[in-house]
């Protein structure tokens, strides 16, 4: 159990450092890479909480797809963007807001009314988190699951529709035009003698 506590503090320190680096680094590629590091350590923490499926999902799907997409956009945009200089420095405001928010959350957690649940015993050997999650996801939350799928579909269509750009020299087929073509439009019969090109 002490080993898990050690891991918690190790991953927690890396997570908070990477999060601070994400919001303070000037270089956007470095910021995106620190964001990836913070997601990775968060996945390790979720593994400590025995949420194996979501932990693997965060690494495979979220880091592998979403954050790499983020990195692509950062590299595409940053090359042409001069550094944005802030007219006012909001660092003091940010520190104040963050301190107040952290103090409130901490005060709620250490209040005597808050009685945290005791640590559950570890899951038995052979217990499948994926199976357990699937058994509630496809029964109790089936409607929410379908709604999430629809939301993803809408996001796909929206993102493609937003960024689709037709080039002026783009060749595309027009089926209505193709099916309206008559023989006279394409075929010209000559009598074999040379005639001036029309």
């Amino acid at each position: 159990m002490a080993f898990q506590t050690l891991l918690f503090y190790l991953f927690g320190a890396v997570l908070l450092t990477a999060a601070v680096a994400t919001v303070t680094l000037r270089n956007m590629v470095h910021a995106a890479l620190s964001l990836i590091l913070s997601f990775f350590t968060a996945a390790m923490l979720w593994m400590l909480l025995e949420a194996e499926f979501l932990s693997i999902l965060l690494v495979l799907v979220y880091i592998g797809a979403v954050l790499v997409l983020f990195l692509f956009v950062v590299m595409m945009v940053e090359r042409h963007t001069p550094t944005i200089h802030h007219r006012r420095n909001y660092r003091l405001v940010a520190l104040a807001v963050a301190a107040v928010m952290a103090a409130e959350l901490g005060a709620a957690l250490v209040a005597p009314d808050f009685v945290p649940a005791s640590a559950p015993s570890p899951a038995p050997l052979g217990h499948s988190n994926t199976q357990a999650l699937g058994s509630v996801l496809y029964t109790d939350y089936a409607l929410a699951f379908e709604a999430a799928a629809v939301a993803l579909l809408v996001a796909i269509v929206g993102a493609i529709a937003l960024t689709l750009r037709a080039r002026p020299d783009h060749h595309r087929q027009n089926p209505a035009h193709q099916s309206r073509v008559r023989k006279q439009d394409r075929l010209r019969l000559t009598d074999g003698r040379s005639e001036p090109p029309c």
Partner: protein
Amino acid sequence: MLSLTHFMLLSGALFAIGVAGVFVNRRHALVLLMSLELILLAVNTNFIAASHYLQDLAGQAFALFVLTIAAAEIAIGLAIVVVVFRSRETIDAEDLSEVRG
């Protein structure tokens, strides 16, 4: 011995860092999106910690839905950033004030 309070304090600190990031980088659209990602990560960690300590899988199911919506949000957000960048050659969020009332 790890308790629920450990994880909740950690995710509270992560949430505060994300909120501070929104203030520090309020002109930079991409870093704003990164700060939103940090905030959503803190919320998800909270959900999963509560799910583990209360032995209730509803928290993990909800975290999965939050991940789904976060992915959709980031796809749309990045598409908007790309469109704005193509037409304006900048992603400075304070320059986007044409529709101000």
